[in-house]
């Protein structure tokens, strides 16, 4: 029998939480119950999550774990670079990361990822969504989930910004709100460090631009009154965000950043985008992704990594210092991640190929027990020896570090969708 007990249409609501209920919990028969669950959950977690942010450094193409977090000096697979002692007793990383070696006190290294998918497209999707695709259900990526979970309705800044300037692998860098809806779509920056259509055209004054929007709101609200539709709500919410987003335009402009700070980060595009990311984080943007491409070193692995790891080491350590000095690091989780690592075996072109079986990532800052190393690979780095984890555990750990319950469920129709696949858990060993 069709269940008619929830006979009143509650789906309209322009506030954030109500919006979610419209977007995800509108399964007819179950909607009322689900709304209550969501509300109770969100209230109890609100405090834990407030002000938390995530900055993802996406090493597109697949960075080598051997030239970064998990060196194998002296082995056939080790390559020409040595390992250096870090500030942590007994922990070594690649000599290409001397700066990070001195500041691992906020960082946890994970050396036991086995994510199984070894092609760029599939691997990147997995490491953006935290799970495999399913036909007919579009999952949100990490950024959209974090934008929804950590964002605030009164925020005047974008809640999900994604930088990906290189063309290689850009199509693999999934930014999709999926069933959460376009409200949580990324502001995706490719050709420019500034988002499109964020600045006012010259032929209208700022006052007229504002009052024109007010007139629109008046006309549109008059129309919306007494009508109910999630889509209609989202239309006016989108226009309501325009002025706030425009005022955040200056965040993308480094000209008012002190020269000293700019010099510290350096001149590379990656460094500049990391600095913009820091500005956004400081202004309250809950999720920023900065992609650096292209790590796909099938040939000349060691030249490629000399250049890219050296840059990463500098930018990442500068970013962490900057965040720490500003008191932001305790609320900001900085992640390095890629679609996979690279083969320990060195091929005939002195390259390393795709390798998803035993690779590394790092987590720094918010919610992380600094100075820890989790998991280990065998002496040649061919297999995970201890504490193997997959993408779902990695995602659960990221969510939990910023105060989000990884087992929290969204509802698509009547179907519960937990944030991470059922049966997977966060790595508590690296959490503070």
């Amino acid at each position, binding site marked *: *029998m*069709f269940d*008619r007990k*929830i*006979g*009143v*249409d509650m*789906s309209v609501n322009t506030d954030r939480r109500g919006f979610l209920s*419209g*977007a995800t919990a*509108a399964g*007819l028969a179950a909607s009322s119950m689900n709304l209550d669950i969501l509300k109770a959950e969100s209230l109890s977690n609100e405090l834990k999550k407030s002000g938390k942010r995530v900055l993802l450094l996406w090493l597109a193409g697949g960075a080598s774990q051997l030239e970064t977090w998990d060196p194998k000096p002296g082995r056939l697979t080790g390559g020409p670079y040595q390992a250096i002692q870090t500030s942590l007793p007994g922990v070594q990383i690649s000599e290409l990361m001397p700066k990070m070696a001195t500041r691992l006190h906020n960082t946890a290294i994970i050396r036991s990822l086995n994510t199984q998918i070894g092609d760029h497209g599939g691997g990147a999707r997995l490491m953006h969504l935290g799970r495999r695709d*399913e*036909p*007919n259900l579009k999952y949100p990526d990490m950024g959209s989930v974090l934008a929804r979970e950590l964002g605030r309705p009164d925020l005047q800044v974008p809640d999900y910004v994604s930088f990906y300037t290189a063309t290689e692998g850009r199509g693999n860098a999934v930014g999709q709100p999926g069933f959460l*809806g*376009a*409200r949580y*779509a990324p502001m995706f920056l490719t050709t420019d460090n500034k*988002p*499109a*259509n*964020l*600045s*006012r*055209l010259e*032929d*209208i004054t700022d006052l*007229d*631009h504002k*009052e*024109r*929007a007010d*007139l*629109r709101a*008046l*006309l*549109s609200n*008059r*129309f*919306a009154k*007494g*009508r*109910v*539709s*999630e*889509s*209609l709500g*989202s*239309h*006016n919410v*989108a*226009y309501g*965000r*325009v002025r706030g*987003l*425009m005022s955040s335009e200056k965040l993308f402009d480094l000209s008012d950043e002190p020269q000293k700070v700019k010099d510290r980060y350096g001149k590379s595009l990656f460094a500049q985008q990391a600095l913009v990311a820091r500005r956004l984080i400081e202004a309250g943007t809950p999720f920023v992704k900065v992609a650096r491409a292209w790590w796909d070193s099938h040939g000349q692995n060691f030249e490629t990594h000399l250049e890219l790891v050296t840059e990463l080491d500098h930018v990442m350590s500068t970013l962490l210092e900057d965040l720490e000095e500003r008191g932001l690091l305790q609320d900001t989780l900085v992640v390095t991640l890629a679609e996979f690592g690279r083969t320990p075996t060195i091929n005939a072109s002195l390259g390393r190929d795709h390798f998803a079986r035993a690779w590394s990532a790092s987590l720094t800052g918010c919610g992380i027990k600094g100075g820890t190393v989790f998991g280990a690979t065998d002496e040649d780095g061919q297999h995970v020896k201890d504490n193997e984890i997959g993408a779902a555990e990695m995602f659960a750990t990221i969510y939990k570090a910023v105060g989000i319950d990884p087992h929290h469920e969204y509802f698509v*129709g*009547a*179907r519960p969708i937990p944030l991470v696949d059922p049966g997977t858990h966060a790595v508590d060993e690296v959490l503070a």
Partner: protein
Amino acid sequence: MKKYLLLIVSLVLAGYMQPALKAQDLLPPETTIEQAVDHYIQAEQATGNIASAPQVDDYILLRRTMLDLIGRIPTVAEVEAYVADEDPEKRVKLVDHLMQQPEFIEQLAYDLNNILAPAGKTDLELYLADALNNRKGWDNIFADMIYGNYEEEMPKQAMQFVNLRINDIDNLTNATSALFFGVNISCAKCHDHPLVSEWTQAHFYGMKSFFNRSFSNGDFVAERAYGAIKYANTNGEQLDAKLMFLTGSVIEEPEPVVLDDEAKKKEKAELEQLKKDKKPAPAPEFSRRAQLIEIALRENDRDYFSKNLVNRMWNRIYGHGLVMPLDQMHPENPPSHPDLLDWLARDTYTNDYNLQRLVRGLILSKTYSQHSVYGGEKRPAKFWFATANVKPMSPRQYAAALALASRNPAHFDDPNEAVSRIQNEVKAHRGWERKFVVPGEKFQVSVDEALLFSNADEFKDKTKVANDRLGGELAAIESNEALVQRAIKTVYSRPATAEELEAISAYIAARSDRREEAISQIVWALLTSSELRFNH
């Protein structure tokens, strides 16, 4: 395809999907669609003590009907002519007139393509328009899509339904089940469906078996006369898939052709040659895809097919399906109006699955012409259909609406010129479609769209004060009241309210030093407001 006498074994038929057992209890077949719709919707409302929203006036009804049938808003001249018309039959005449316009088929084909083709693809649109113009029923369209016919140009294009998915048979199986039968069986690939006891792995692999012999050969879909599916259940047992439809009906088929190595080599060489010659491979004598068409339309098995059609067309017109979500037609998720769905399904298969007939009936009901504002205190949930739903426009509708609403309305006053001028204006704005997203269930407008309209240079032309633009005409009107009336009627196809008169007049008055700019800004506010973006 009927060469074989098929022995069909019907397994347990789910009660839900059985044809209405008590057909005598349904309203008689000769009832009109619109009467049946209103009868069942109102009867259900009576059980919940729910009152309907009031009927809309001529202004809203004209706009809504034109958007739904020909995909555009009316011009001021059309609004005024319709409202002034005193013919009591004017609504029926309007519907019949609109359905004869080429835009009616064009829009239906566009919408159906958006449903049937993979996201972003337009490959099926031309075929669909041709099929609908030739009054092909949904059953024949389905047959063209699944089995095709490389001898004729149009059915060849229909094969893109299969061809675009041929490299992923799981996806092809799911798409066919979801889009033609309203059943998303993807959960049942790895295990029996957790919520729906009727959907088992046997169903998934049964459906997949209709496609497993098909493959891509050059630009064409080809099919072998052999090939079977084995799958493992959750206990790890290996099972042989049967050629089984969603209802559980199994098709007994001839033994698969067995080819020795020599014959396989020969087959491969022939296929390679056909590929080089850019020719289709001949279909096997026994085609599994052809069997799917046969069984899906058979009397005891056609409920999935006919109810899915009704539900999708209902959703398109009323903005909410009788079963929601649209691909979850299963016993655990019953329809809100089972008798109505039964009646409409019967009506559609007894009338050759004619889409035009179905659309016409749905549009002529009183349920259709309810107001989207509910007068009473508590707005009833969507499934009561006691109010009209507000529907986001398709990219094509919105592009057309922006094109017409931003044009100087006098451009369309001359009835001898109006038709071609409207067509030209709409066609010239087709490029705008790409800026918008095809709305699905729970569609949300993105902030990118709002930023585009707020700050992009390319939208400026729509709002400027120039002779061919709405702004140009408004600037020539001296009285503020007349100006506001003209603007509102052009953009929203109705007279202005007192509140609008006041707000807009005040906006102009505050900018007496820059009246043209004020007018341009007013046009901007009208064009970007939700009232233009949505069909209400």
